[in-house]
């Protein structure tokens, strides 16, 4: 037997021991593997079952509380109309305000509710 053969034989003895005594995993590992398998299987069979609840931030929570996207659209539209009227008010509204603030018809007991909101239509009503 050559030295090389002897070395091979000796090394083979180590390999035989290694083959016969494999390192064993903990029992917890197979539990973890099976848990993973079940998660994957369930997600495939019933995709919605394991869907994570959607995370929403504070702003989106408030938006949902006041009625969601339709309410937000309506509020935005109302705000834009308000800004537009403030920047460029209709003629009849400017006349009404001016006459009440500068004219004789204004006193503190007047109620704003008494303002004639149809003042701009006097011509039409006068004409029958």
């Amino acid at each position, binding site marked *: 037997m050559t030295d090389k053969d002897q070395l091979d034989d000796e090394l083979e003895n*180590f390999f035989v021991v*290694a083959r016969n005594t494999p390192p064993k995993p903990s029992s917890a590992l197979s539990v973890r593997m099976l848990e993973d398998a079940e998660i994957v299987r369930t997600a495939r069979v019933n995709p919605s079952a394991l869907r994570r609840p959607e995370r929403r931030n504070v702003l989106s929570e408030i938006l949902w509380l006041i009625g969601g996207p339709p309410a937000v659209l309506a509020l935005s539209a109302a705000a834009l109309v308000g800004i537009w009227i403030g920047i460029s008010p209709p003629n009849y509204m400017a006349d009404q305000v001016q006459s009440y603030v500068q004219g004789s018809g204004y006193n503190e007991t007047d109620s704003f509710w008494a303002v004639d909101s149809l003042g701009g239509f006097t011509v039409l009503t006068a004409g029958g």
Partner: protein
Amino acid sequence: MMPLDSLTNASDEALLVLFANGDPKAAVVLTHRLGPRVFAYGFRLLGDRTEAEDVAQEAMLRLWKTAPDWRPGEAKITTWLFRVVSNLCIDRKRRYRNRPVSLEVGADPPDGADSVDETLQQKARSEALQAALLYLPDRQRQAVILRNIEDLANPEIASIMGISVEAVESLTARGKRALSKILNDQRDALGFENDR
């Protein structure tokens, strides 16, 4: 769903198809059949039990996920798993390159050993081999483990490592020479005179 007993004789591929079709028992059989083997290979590559368990779990998770897309006949599941474990271990070793080499003991003594001396010697051999393997360069270690411990054929090892059969032969030859030298240096300390 098939009874568990009838699944134990099914091939790995058949079990994976059953799992892909929603049979949970197929996963039980595959886990018990492949899990320990995947762990053992990872442990021999890394020398660290915790790391090897993480790698084995990740490899099996990838198998569960790939089950519906598995194409029968293209590759053996064990070949695919050994390739995944190899890549995961290489990634981890790159990440922890500066860590000291672990000499953790992996195997318990076999049941039914003839004597206490024999048991102790087998344990010492197992530990000495594991320690020596960790001194080999990564590719040599991988080739030697697959060829001489996992007992795979060279073409399968070539497929796992993505190299030619000749390169596998070269790596195993050099790896075994290095192992012989390391173990020979420790022979007297480990008390292996009986082998001569």
